[in-house]
C-alpha cells in the first residue's frame, strides 16, 4: 500500500452548499399541511401508535388537538409523557415505532406523519419558551442526577415537578448528551437541543453543575452522603474497538466524536473531511457520520456492515437516506485490518454470512477499500477506565448496568437509565422513558404516596 499523505481537508464544498446540505432534514409542516395530515388520523381506539411509543404519548389525542387548533393542549399531551417530545419529533426513528404501527399501513396506505405533527405541535412551545409545567410544593428532598443527557434531564424535570431539589452533574460543558453531541446536525438545526434544554430547566428546582464527571470529580459515595437519591444517566463513554491491526493509525476515528465536532462547529466548511471515507458499523451513528461526510464533500463514502439490511440497527429509512445521499452501503463484510504506514490508507474486509443458527462466519472473500478516514461506529460501552471503581458495586451485565422495572440498580438509593443500562437501545425516546420511570420511583422512595 502506498503511504502518500491522506487526502483530508476542510472546505471541499462552498459555504452555501454546505449550509444547504445541513439544513433541516424534515422541514416543519405548514399549518394547512398539519391540519390536513391531522385529519387523516383515524383516532384509533387503544391506538397502536401509542403502544409503539416507548414513552406512551397519547398520539391520537395530540393529533385531534392539532385538528381543532388547540396547539397548547396538543403540546401538553405530548410533553407530559415525553419532556423531550421536541427532540424526539426530530430524531425518533418513527418509521420503526409509531408510524410503523399506524393502521393506515395495513391496507398499504401512507401512515400518518406523526413525527412531523409532533414537531408542529411542540415547536411553538420552544420558540416562545412557553411554560407548561409547574412544581409541587418543595419536599425538602435532594436528588443527584448524574448525566445531563435525555435520561438525566427527563428524570430531573419530573423530579423537579414533584417538588424535589435536583442537582444535575454533567461532564460536558453543554447539557443534552447525545442530543447535543451525538446526532447529525441536519436533524436538529438552529441549536434546537440547547433551546430544549433551556426550556426544560426553566421549570426551576434544577441546579446544573457542568464539567463534573463521575469518577473524576466526585464519587457515588460523595453523592450518597449528600443526597436522598441518585440517578445515573451516564450514557456510554467509550467506543467499542474493532480489535484489528492498524486500529491505532492516525485517521481511524470514533464516529461519535466526529459527529460531536461537526455539531459544535459554527462553520462546517472548517471541518477537515476525507476524500475516501469508510464507516464500519450499522447503527444510526454510522448513517449520521456517513451522510454528514458526504454533505461536507467526501467523494466516496462507504458504510460496511457485517450483516444484512434487515439486521442493521439503522432503519430502512435511514439506510435509504444514506443511499440517496450518495453513500454506498456494503452489507455482509467485516474488517480484517487497516492499512497504512503513518496514516490510514485503506481497510481490508472479509465477506460474511450466517448459518442456520444465525451465527456469523466469514466466507474468505476479501476486498480492499481506499480510505483517508475510517470511522468506527460499532457501538459504545461504559467507560470502565474512568468508572470502573465507581460501578464495581453495581450489578451489570454485558457491560451495562442492570436495573429493575423501576430503573432501580442493585445499590439502594441509586437508579439508572438511558444507554448505560441493559435494555437501553440508543434512542432518546427510551432514555426519556427511563428517566421518567425512575423519577416516579425515586419520588415514591422519598415518601410520596403511591398515587402522588
Amino acid at each position, binding site marked *: 500500500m502506498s503511504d502518500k499523505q491522506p487526502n483530508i481537508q476542510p472546505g471541499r464544498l462552498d459555504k452555501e452548499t454546505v449550509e444547504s446540505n445541513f439544513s433541516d432534514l424534515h422541514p416543519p409542516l405548514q399549518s394547512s399541511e398539519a391540519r390536513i395530515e*391531522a385529519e387523516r388520523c383515524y383516532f384509533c381506539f387503544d391506538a397502536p401508535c401509542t403502544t409503539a411509543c416507548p414513552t406512551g404519548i397519547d398520539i391520537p389525542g395530540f393529533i385531534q388537538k392539532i*385538528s381543532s387548533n388547540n396547539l397548547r393542549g396538543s403540546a401538553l399531551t405530548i410533553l407530559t409523557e415525553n419532556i423531550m417530545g421536541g427532540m424526539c419529533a426530530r430524531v425518533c426513528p418513527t418509521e420503526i415505532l409509531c408510524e410503523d404501527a399506524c393502521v393506515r399501513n395495513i*391496507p398499504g396506505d401512507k401512515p400518518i406523519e406523526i413525527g412531523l405533527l409532533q414537531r408542529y405541535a411542540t415547536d411553538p412551545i420552544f420558540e416562545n419558551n412557553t411554560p407548561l409545567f409547574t412544581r409541587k410544593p418543595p419536599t425538602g428532598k435532594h436528588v443527584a442526577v448524574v448525566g445531563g443527557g435525555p435520561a438525566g434531564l427527563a428524570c430531573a424535570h419530573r423530579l423537579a415537578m414533584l417538588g424535589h431539589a435536583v442537582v444535575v452533574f454533567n461532564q460536558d460543558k453543554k447539557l443534552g448528551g447525545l442530543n447535543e453531541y451525538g446526532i447529525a446536525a441536519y436533524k436538529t438545526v438552529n441549536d434546537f437541543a440547547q433551546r430544549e434544554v433551556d426550556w426544560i430547566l426553566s421549570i426551576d428546582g434544577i441546579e446544573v453543575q457542568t464539567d463534573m464527571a463521575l469518577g473524576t470529580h466526585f464519587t457515588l459515595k460523595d453523592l450518597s452522603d449528600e443526597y436522598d437519591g441518585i440517578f445515573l444517566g451516564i450514557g456510554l463513554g467509550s467506543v467499542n474497538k474493532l480489535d484489528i491491526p492498524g486500529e491505532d493509525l492516525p485517521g481511524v476515528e470514533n464516529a461519535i466524536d466526529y459527529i460531536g465536532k461537526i455539531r459544535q462547529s459554527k462553520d462546517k466548511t472548517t471541518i477537515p473531511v476525507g476524500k475516501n471515507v469508510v464507516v464500519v458499523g450499522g447503527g444510526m451513528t454510522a448513517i449520521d457520520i456517513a451522510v454528514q461526510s458526504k454533505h461536507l464533500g467526501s467523494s466516496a463514502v462507504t458504510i460496511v456492515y457485517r450483516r444484512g439490511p434487515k439486521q442493521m440497527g439503522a432503519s430502512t429509512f435511514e439506510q435509504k437516506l444514506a443511499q440517496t445521499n450518495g453513500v454506498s452501503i456494503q452489507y455482509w463484510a467485516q474488517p480484517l485490518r487497516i492499512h497504512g504506514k503513518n496514516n490510514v490508507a485503506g481497510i481490508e474486509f472479509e465477506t460474511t454470512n450466517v448459518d442456520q443458527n444465525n451465527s456469523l462466519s466469514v466466507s474468505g472473500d476479501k476486498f480492499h477499500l481506499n480510505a483517508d478516514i475510517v470511522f468506527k461506529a460499532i457501538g459504545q460501552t461504559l467507560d470502565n477506565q474512568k468508572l470502573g471503581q465507581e460501578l464495581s458495586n453495581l450489578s451489570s451485565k454485558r457491560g451495562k448496568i442492570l436495573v429493575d422495572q423501576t430503573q432501580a440498580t442493585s445499590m439502594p438509593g441509586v437508579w439508572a437509565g438511558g444507554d448505560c443500562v441493559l435494555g437501553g437501545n440508543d434512542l432518546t425516546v427510551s432514555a426519556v422513558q427511563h428517566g421518567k420511570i425512575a423519577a416516579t420511583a425515586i419520588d415514591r422512595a422519598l415518601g410520596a404516596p403511591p398515587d402522588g
Partner: protein
Amino acid sequence: MADLTCEFLGIRSPNPFWLASAPPTDKAYNVNRAFEAGWGGVVWKTLGEDPPIVNVNGPRYGALHANDRRLIGFNNIELITDRPLQTNLDEIRQIKKDWPDRAVIVSLMLPMQEEIWAKYVPMIEDTGADGLELNFGCPHGMSERGMGAAVGQVPEYISMATSWCKNVARIPVIVKLTPNVTNILPPAKAAMDAGADAVSLINTINSIMRVDYDTLQMHPTTDGLGTHGGYCGEAVKPIALHMVAEIARHNETSNLPISGIGGITDWRDAVDFLALGADNLQVCTAAMIYGFKIIDDLTDGLSNFLDNKGMSSITDLVGSAIPSVTDWQYLNLNYVEKAFIDQDLCIQCGRCHIACEDTSHQAITCSVDGRRHFEVIDAECVGCNLCTSVCPVEGCISMKAVSDGIDARTGNPIQTEKLNWTMHPNNPMKKVP
C-alpha cells in the same frame, strides 16, 4: 348515451341542471358564461319592485370549512337583485333571444298586494322568459319586510300570492318553498291548491355560522353586527331530500312537479334528488365554490349512471326510490340485521369498538384470546349501523340480514312474516287485524 333532456312544465332544457336564483344568475354576464359552460337553464336572480333593494357592502357569505378547507356549508345574507328592474328585464330578453334552447326562469318577490303582482308579472312575461319562480323562501332580510320566507311559512299567504300570480300569468309558475317550517306538506299543498304548476325546494335555512374566537362576536359581521343568514351547500342536502321526498310520496302532492334544490355538488347528489322525486334540479353553492365547470361532471356523471342502469332518460329515474320511503310505523319490526366485520379488510383501528362500547350496545370486541381483534358479538348487536358509519374502510363492515334461525340477541326465532308498529302487541293503539 342516455338522454339528459329535461322537460319540466313544458319547458325544455338540454339537461336538468339549472342554476338556482342567486348571485350566479344576477346578470347577463354570468348567465352567458353559465350557458357557454353547458348549464341547462337558469332561474334569474329574484326581481323585486323598484327602487332596488340595497345590499350590505361587507361580508355577505359565511363558510363552514372542513380542516382541509373544503367548504361543506355556506350561508349568505344577500338580498334579491339590487339592480334596476328594467336593466334585468332587458338582459333577460336578450339572453332568451341568444339562448333559445336553454330554460330561462325568472324569480320574483313582491309585497302581499294583488295589484302589484298584476303589474309586474306581465312585464316579466314580456321578456320571453319560460317561467316564473315565486321566491317564498329567502329567510333573511326580505322576510323582515313580510316577503320571502315570511310568506312561505304561512300556507294562507302562499295561497294568496300564488293565486294573484296565476291570475295573470300565462307561463308556468313555480313556487319556491322555505325549509324553515316543521312540515313541508302544508306549504306545498297550499301552492298546489292555489294553482302553482310546480314547487322548488329547498331555499336556505336560518343559520349563524359561528363566532369569531378572538372578538367573541358572531362571524361574519357587518361593522360589528351580524344577522342570521340562509344556510346551504352540501351540508343541507339530507334536509332537502327529506322535504322533496315528503312531497313526492304523499298522495295529495305526489303529482306536483318538483324542482329539487339543496347541496347538489356532483352527479350522485343529482341521482338522490331525482330518485326521491325531483323532476328537475337546481344548483347554486357548488357553482359558487368551484365555478360553472362543474356542469361537466354533473351531466357526464349522470349520463354514465343512467347508462349503467340501463335507463334511457332521466324520467326513468325520477321517483324510483319513492316506494322505499315510508313512515316509521310501517317498518318491519321482525326484520333483523347484524353487523359483520370483514377481517380481511379490517385495519384494526378499533373505531367500531369504541363507538359501540361507549355510546351503543357493547357489541364489538376489542380483543379475542389476548390479541387485538374486532368482531361483532351477535348476542348484543341490534343492527344499528353505527359501526358501519364510523368505520374508515368502505365495505369493511356491512349489515347482513339474518333471515332464519334464532336472533342471538333476543333468543327468539327469526319471524319471516312482517310485523310493523301498527300491528305490534306493544302498541296500545294497534289496529285489530
